[in-house]
């Protein structure tokens, strides 16, 4: 990246402005100064570290985009902090203005670094290695030896040897020395890395702006049409338009779950899959797909993921007149790996009074020491255990979660002894509610799956970008640019050969390179002088 040179105040471009004071900048100069500051490497590094620092609060405070339920719970528990945090966008750090500001500044800074640097590089890539310095002995890594060969022969062999090792030679080196350089691609790697980072940042922003994420609980035997109304939760990007929804439909036909008996932890659900029949559009042919965790289905631009599963008891409610007011599956939420599940059923349209049921579902019910438990997570002996509410359940007035019963104005039904009434229904059983409210029947159990949908435009670009970044990174870390010079001079009957190498990457060790080259060049036995020179200089680090 470009380093900002110390800013020299430029000569005023409008000399007839007499009231300018020293250090005052015209808007254009100020702009240029700001640009130089922003695109300096120092700023880029600081921005990078700031981005890391700014990401920290999001890992400590629950994030709406990550876990809305936990966030709401946290907000309830901290009434004082919540408004302050909300002002600072601390519940959605990664969409917040200040996080975006760092992100955008970093991107501008990167682009500002890369563009000028690319031009510099394009000139440098064609450049020949620089001519040999006058005194090679001044370089930190050098060695020398004497030989009886002619200087021309030595240089000729040095050229061949360096070429063979992939060095570029200085063409007009007619004199007494050979200049060579290698590792030109390091800079290419460096540029590819930085460009790819920009690509990744742009692709990531695209995914956030134009994509969406949503989920739905779908009970076996039902059909899902990809429209907004069918989603339980839906988080669109700021620039998402409903016109981008793919017009697919699918039916959830069958569900398979493999239960595994483990020695110490009892039965656990291992593999589960949902058999889907889907059409990519209303006129497309029907296809089938077994949806599994880690094996999403792609329809058009949308990816469909299986996330979890649970049980939906089939419940029928009749009112006091014997009219059916509700019949169907009610998804219950598993509370732990035993699949003990919690659920709520609200029946607002009952003419003989609103009915609300709240309680637990036991897949394999058993009384152990008088306590109701489920001993297996599979539905071998299903039982629902519900408490009943009536009165004003707030169903008309407020929008609320289907897993939450508003009991503020409701009244709980009691038994004759005045205890809360609990309906414990086994499969096929029915119970009559007091006060002529009607009956509740437990008809059956159906599995449900939680399915997640997402569109992430630019995900391929992000992947390509990050892979290229890695390739560029490897190039910039492991390609070692270095220069080698060989000088041979005839002095007093012998040829004096000096070889020097310069590592340009910082952190490279050129001593072995030098040794290997000299060993290749020298055909005679080493003279004592050469040995001395190498021992003096050989252990220099870096």
């Amino acid at each position: 990246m470009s380093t900002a040179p110390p800013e020299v105040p430029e000569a005023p471009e409008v000399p007839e402005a007499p009231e300018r004071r020293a250090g005052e900048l015209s808007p254009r100069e100020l702009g240029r100064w700001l640009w130089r500051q922003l695109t300096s490497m120092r700023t880029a590094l600081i921005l990078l570290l700031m981005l890391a620092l700014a990401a920290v609060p999001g890992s400590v405070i629950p994030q709406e985009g990550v876990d809305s339920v936990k966030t709401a719970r946290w907000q309830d528990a901290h009434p004082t902090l919540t408004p302050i945090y909300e002002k600072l966008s601390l519940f959605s750090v990664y969409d917040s203005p200040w996080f975006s500001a760092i992100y955008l500044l970093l991107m501008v800074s990167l682009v500002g670094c890369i563009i000028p640097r690319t031009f510099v590089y394009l000139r440098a890539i064609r450049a020949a290695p620089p001519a040999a310095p006058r005194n090679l002995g001044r370089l930190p890594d050098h060695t020398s030896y004497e030989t009886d060969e002619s200087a021309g022969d030595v240089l000729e062999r040095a050229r061949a040897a360096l070429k063979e090792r992939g060095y570029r030679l200085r063409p007009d080196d007619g004199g007494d020395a050979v200049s060579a350089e290698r590792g030109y691609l390091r800079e290419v790697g460096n540029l590819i890395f930085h460009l790819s980072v920009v690509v990744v940042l742009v692709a990531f922003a695209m995914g956030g702006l134009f994509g969406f994420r949503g989920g739905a609980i779908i009970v076996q035997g039902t059909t899902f049409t990809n429209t907004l109304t069918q989603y339980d939760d839906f988080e669109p990007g700021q620039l998402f338009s409903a016109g981008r929804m793919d017009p697919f439909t699918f039916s959830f036909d069958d569900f398979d779950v493999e239960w595994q008996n483990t020695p110490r932890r009892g039965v656990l659900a291992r593999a589960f899959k949902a058999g889907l029949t889907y059409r990519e559009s209303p006129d497309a042919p029907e296809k089938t797909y077994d949806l599994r965790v880690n094996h999403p289905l792609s329809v058009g631009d949308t990816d469909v993921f299986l996330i979890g599963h649970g049980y939906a008891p089939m419940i029928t409610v009749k009112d006091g007149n014997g009219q059916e007011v509700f019949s169907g599956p009610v998804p219950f939420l598993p509370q732990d790996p035993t699949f003990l599940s919690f659920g709520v059923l609200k029946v607002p349209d009952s003419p003989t009074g609103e009915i609300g049921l709240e309680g637990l579902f036991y897949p394999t019910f058993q009384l152990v020491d008088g306590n109701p438990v489920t001993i297996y997570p599979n539905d071998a002996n299903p039982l629902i255990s519900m408490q009943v509410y009536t009165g004003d359940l707030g169903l008309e007035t407020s929008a609320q979660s289907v897993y939450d019963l508003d009991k503020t104005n409701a009244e709980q039904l009691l038994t004759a002894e005045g205890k809360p009434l609990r309906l414990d229904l086994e499969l096929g059983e029915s119970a009559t509610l007091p006060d002529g409210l009607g009956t509740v029947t437990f008809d059956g159990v159906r599995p449900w799956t939680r399915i997640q949908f997402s569109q992430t435009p630019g995900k391929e670009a992000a992947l390509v970008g990050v892979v290229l970044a890695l390739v560029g990174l490897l190039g910039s870390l492991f390609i070692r640019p270095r220069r080698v010079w060989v000088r041979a001079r005839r002095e007093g009957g012998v040829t004096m050969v000096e070889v020097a190498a310069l590592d340009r990457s910082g952190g490279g060790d050129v001593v072995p390179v030098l040794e290997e080259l000299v060993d290749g060049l020298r055909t005679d036995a080493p003279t004592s002088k050469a040995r001395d020179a190498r021992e003096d200089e050989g252990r220099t680090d870096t």
Partner: protein
Amino acid sequence: MTNSAWETLSDQAVAVAGVVYFLALLAHLVEWASLREVAPASVAAAGGAAGGEVGTGAVAVDTGPDRTAERARRVALFGRLGLLLTGLACAVHFVALLGRGLAADPNRVPWGNMYEFTVSGTFVVTLMYLVLHRRFALAWMAPIVTGFVLTTLMIAVIWLHSEVTPLTEALNSYWLVIHVVSAVIATGAFTLGGILSAAYLVKDRRGEATSGPLARVPSLPTLDRISYRIHAFAFPVWTFAVLITGPIWAHEAWSSYWNWDPKEVWAFITWVVYAAYLHARSTAGWKGRNAAILALVGVATLWFNFVGINFFSTTTQHGYAESAPAFVEPGER
């Protein structure tokens, strides 16, 4: 062999490996204790030899009385013994991992929970130490590495140990092998780099010693260079683990390639810190002290992510500290 027999074998192998690491540590401590008594002049020579690229405990003592020679012989002997024991412990450590993998039904890679990840990670630290021992003349690191591995293994056995369980559905993917292997390798390498950087800072503060343990630690420029090389190796591996395989797997399993999960956030923070380290070294010419401090910050974020996030974060989906149940909390309707 039955699954539970494999599991028992694995547990026993961890215990045996711990004992052998302890013996190796003792051998190295004897080696170092013997070294302390050597006359200063000879120690300087020994320090010079260790700073170069000479094998274990090759202490060149050419002058001095017989007693000194005898001690030098003892230093070399216990150095070799320690290395041998470390190699043996590493082999037993591998058996522990193998048993852990074969104990699961179906067989799987042995890094499905935090205990297994810790055992695998320490194995990588030992293995890398042994592999790089000759190349970078790491003999001086012996007590630190054996001590670190022994302590971490003890922590794993005492606090993290859990029984072999099948993988949860989301973990059951071949990406577990690719993603976690690269993360473990990078973690092991960054840890070694961190030890080097810490040694650099200690030596930088104390100055070049002519006697005592510090004299065996290589010269500052050598430490700096080895540390840079290890970081330069670990960083691309970390990039691969965190920014390539992680997002691909997250997309397959959780429907979004980047979820701002706390573990992802901290992995990204670690990445940024090490990126800044490499960048500062290559362009700003930050060597030595500042670079070493930055590398230690990197290691701190790395280990906080591994330990801290698992125990303190409530929202992470990487919660393999206890085995995650296979249920979901759907959003509000």
